[in-house]
């Protein structure tokens, strides 16, 4: 992981018309707003300046992810993602996890808005976490591993604190019987404890081995297929949850476990580029991110310091204005955002609020 936010390739990629077109399609075609008047634009991305990774074959050290998002106890808390009427996960807590829709932007947006500046999460509402590959990298060469079962894994992580196993695996002749629903009892009323397995307030979620046995992460974490330079891989932010469970289940050996998979002949190199919609809160972050760019220091969500402020050949504003697509320039906060003709009423409102935040109106 390189502590670079403002190198020329990062800016070129963030402002590349094809990447922006893809981001818009990933928002518009896969997400929706259950409340069309929600002030959020799926048609206009905002830029989130993340880092990059270049791993050479033989690199012994490894980072689990671009950074840790908050998302531990706040998934249960009212002030966090919310569970009440319209809360992101309310269907799960009613037992109707099948009805939980991870792609409804309306409910989720408010959760993030309320949380803004709060619990050390990623400050922007990301619809997709993503990376752009700069290398040809196949499974077993240090790529991403995911648990490709978004809804079930999320529901499981949320409901797990309400249940406990009655018998340990070794108490069964067939240890897999440990997973049988009959072995798991509901903790009701006075017997409820304060515990949220794996969640620590103010920390990322941690998952020791065996804490979430029904996810069978040892066999359900799969590598993404081989990627080439220019391929863009995105994953729903909730799906980082099992990924972290898995990494943590290998605690102590995590580094080696991943290192073992790094058998590639060449480097494994990616730019982290998430997909974020236009909202007032996201624009608020872009305001400080814009300042960070001009100073050449790390983006506000990341560890501070001098960053690239003293770097030779660091791109300046002129570079952005002459290199990036107009939508990219708007997404970075360096031009007034223009709403597309297809924009919804909520989308128009979001863009207006964002422009106001960014000082264009």
């Amino acid at each position, binding site marked *: *992981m*390189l*502590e*670079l936010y403002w*190198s*020329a*390739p990062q800016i070129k*990629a963030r402002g590349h018309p*094809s990447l922006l077109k*893809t981001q818009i399609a990933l928002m518009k*075609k896969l997400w929706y707003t259950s409340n069309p008047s929600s002030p959020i634009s799926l048609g206009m991305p905002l830029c989130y300046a993340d880092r990059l990774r*270049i791993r*050479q074959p*033989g*690199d012994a050290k490894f980072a*689990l*992810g671009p950074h840790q998002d908050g998302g531990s106890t706040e998934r249960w808390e009212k002030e966090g993602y919310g569970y009440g009427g319209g809360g992101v996960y309310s269907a799960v*807590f009613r*037992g109707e996890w099948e009805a939980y829709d*991870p792609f409804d932007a309306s409910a989720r947006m408010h959760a993030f808005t309320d949380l803004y500046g709060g619990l050390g999460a990623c400050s922007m509402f990301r619809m997709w976490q993503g990376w*752009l590959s*700069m*290398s040809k990298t196949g499974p077993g060469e240090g790529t991403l591993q995911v*648990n*490709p*079962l978004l809804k*079930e894994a999320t*529901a499981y992580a949320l409901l797990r604190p309400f249940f*406990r196993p*009655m018998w340990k695996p070794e108490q069964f002749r067939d240890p897999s019987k440990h997973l049988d*629903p009959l072995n798991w009892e*509901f903790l*009701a009323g006075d*017997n409820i*404890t*304060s*515990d949220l397995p794996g969640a*620590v307030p103010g*920390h990322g979620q941690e998952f020791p*081995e*065996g*804490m979430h046995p*029904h996810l*069978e992460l040892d*066999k359900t974490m*799969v590598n*993404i*297929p081989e990627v*080439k*330079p*220019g*391929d863009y*891989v*995105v*994953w729903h932010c909730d799906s980082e949850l099992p990924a972290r469970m898995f990494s943590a289940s290998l*605690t102590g050996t995590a580094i080696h476990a991943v290192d073992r998979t790094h058998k590639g002949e060449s480097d494994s190199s990616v730019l982290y580029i998430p997909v974020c919609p236009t909202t007032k809160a996201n624009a608020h972050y872009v305001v400080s991110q814009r300042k960070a760019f001009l100073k050449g220091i790390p983006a506000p969500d990341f560890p501070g310091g001098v960053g*690239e402020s*003293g*770097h030779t*050949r660091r791109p300046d504003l002129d570079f952005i204005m002459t290199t990036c697509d107009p939508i990219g320039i708007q997404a970075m906060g360096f031009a007034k955002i223009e709403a597309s003709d297809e924009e919804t009423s909520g989308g128009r409102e979001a863009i207006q609020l964002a422009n106001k935040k960014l000082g264009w109106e």
Partner: protein
Amino acid sequence: MALKTLRLGRCFPFHVCVGQARWMTQGTKAVGAMGKREGDISDAFTSLSGKMAEPLPHRFRLLKQELAKGNEFPIINGWTRLLESLKKENETIAKRGPRVIPEVRFSHLEEDLAKYAHIIKKRGVVVIRGVIPEDEARAYKSEIEDYVKLNPQTKGKSLIGPSIELFSHR
């Protein structure tokens, strides 16, 4: 299934990160600071991890009570359905591996996204092929390397060889 009334006297075992947790996963030092406290764990849980954290504040107990109140049976039924679904789906994933992950072509973006929307939403992940021309994206990498060479003060550099310390901050 009856509601059980067993008392759980101690907290679930899980480990807690001590210190600078926010950037924990990036720092070799911070990883070293990840404390795993041994603790007195109720018998039912010793098999799980052997790790222990301080119990969460009382408000989380109230929160959980509130969340479950009136929803007990739907939650139990939902949980049972969930475990059944996981069992089935896990088997498919284990069998098919990376092939379960959907791919779309940038050249046919709208068409492919429409066609595979259902599976992309189910999997929560998608690979989009050829967003940026291959040569262009590959050139990004060497350009970054040049930028780092020109600026050896760059933090976290790992470009030169296998044994460079990746994470120098914190």
